[in-house]
């Protein structure tokens, strides 16, 4: 299918793409906060590289929006929107915490992102989205290789490293589920075959996470139901897709948007 023509569907799709673009932008910004401060130089570089990748992915979603006919310029959107107009999941905006917290957040995020990209690549009725997802998946493989190696290493090393990874995992898990908060017009996208429902994506994510945690002392805080899905034991933290954010996003945007707000229209 070429870009959908139905106005309601286009609008739903544009919001969906903006939510994904915002996830990438905000988590990318958080990763970039490690530039120059990483615990060891390899991890400094890894966080900076992944930040660069996520910003590239954000731009990819903006390009898809443009191909739908959305006129908004990504720079203007990113540097002038107030927090309540951002649609990112709350997972992405939490302060970077210690390195273990960043690592666990990134790994949960990448596992979720890969799951979503794979679903788009395999079955989206909008070929442009499927093709773009295939491209991003190739890059995400390196994030997963990194996340798997580092999380596993720390989750099975000393008492302190295990404790930090475990605490971060339990704190972040409900927020990770928040990546699967459905947008208000979700049904339209599912009916048009553009993406699977968020509940289905969440189930696939938990399958993947379950496999990922094998060999560590961590377990998915959810019960596998007889039909093959999962019933989380904790309540997902939703709100981001409706523009309801923590105070942390406003602070992040304060730093990110400062230059453009102080010097509107500046060129460099």
């Amino acid at each position, binding site marked *: 299918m070429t870009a959908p023509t139905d106005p309601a569907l286009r609008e739903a799709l544009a919001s969906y793409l903006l939510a994904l673009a915002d996830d990438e932008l905000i988590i990318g910004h958080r990763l970039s906060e490690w530039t120059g401060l990483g615990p060891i130089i*390899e*991890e400094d*570089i*890894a966080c*900076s*590289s*992944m930040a*660069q*990748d*996520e*910003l*590239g*992915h954000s*731009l*990819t979603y903006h390009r898809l929006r443009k191909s739908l006919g959305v006129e908004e310029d990504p720079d203007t959107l990113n540097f002038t929107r107030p927090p309540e107009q951002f649609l990112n999941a709350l997972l992405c905006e939490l302060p970077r915490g210690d390195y273990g917290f960043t690592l666990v957040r990134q790994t949960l995020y990448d596992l979720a992102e890969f799951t979503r990209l794979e679903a788009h690549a395999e079955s989206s009725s909008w070929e*442009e989205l499927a*093709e*773009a997802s*295939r*491209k*991003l998946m*190739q*890059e995400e*493989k*390196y994030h997963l*290789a*990194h996340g798997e*190696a580092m999380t596993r290493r720390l989750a099975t090393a000393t008492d302190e490293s295990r404790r930090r990874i475990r605490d971060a995992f339990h704190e972040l898990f409900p927020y990770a589920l928040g990546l699967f908060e459905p947008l208000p017009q979700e049904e339209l996208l599912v009916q048009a075959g553009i993406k699977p429902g968020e509940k289905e994506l969440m189930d696939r994510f938990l399958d993947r996470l379950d496999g990922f945690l094998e060999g560590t002392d961590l377990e998915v805080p959810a019960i596998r139901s007889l039909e093959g899905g999962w019933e989380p034991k904790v309540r997902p933290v939703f709100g981001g897709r409706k523009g309801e954010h923590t105070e942390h996003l406003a602070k992040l945007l304060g730093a990110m948007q400062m230059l453009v707000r102080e010097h509107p229209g500046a060129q460099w």
Partner: protein
Amino acid sequence: MSEEKGKEGERSERERRVWELLAQVTDPEIPTVNIVELGLIEYVQVEGNQVEVGFVPTFAGCPALGVIKIQIAKVLMEAGFAPRVKVLDIVWSTDRIAESARQKMKEIGLSPPRRHGGSFDPHLTEKVACPYCGSTETVMESPFGPTLCRAIYYCRACQQPFEKFKEL
């Protein structure tokens, strides 16, 4: 008929010239390798002095792409062409990199990507050949390096750190 052929000949001559010019544009991050041998150019279309260049981007977040696009336009304009660089939605793969570029990578101590035919699964335990001594007694130190396209390795045989162009 012969006039037609003459026009065709002129066009293919100009096309050849455009490809030559494009081969002068190098990757700012690997300056010995040019963009044609990296597989970044899908096609050129020449109509009079108008040139359309079909450009295939690599990593979504690669900051070199903007610079490369400017350089393409510059080199063609200086030769009297009116260029248009069209960014294509094609998925670039390291399999598009020509043998000549792979050789040049080795010469500067950068291990070239393995040909993977579309499927690869990076692991930190994957063995790759050291570009200095050829040994496969190597370990990946990090899947991320000084640029998005490179990973950092260490060779246990010659005790040298080296970089590898990642498969994509």
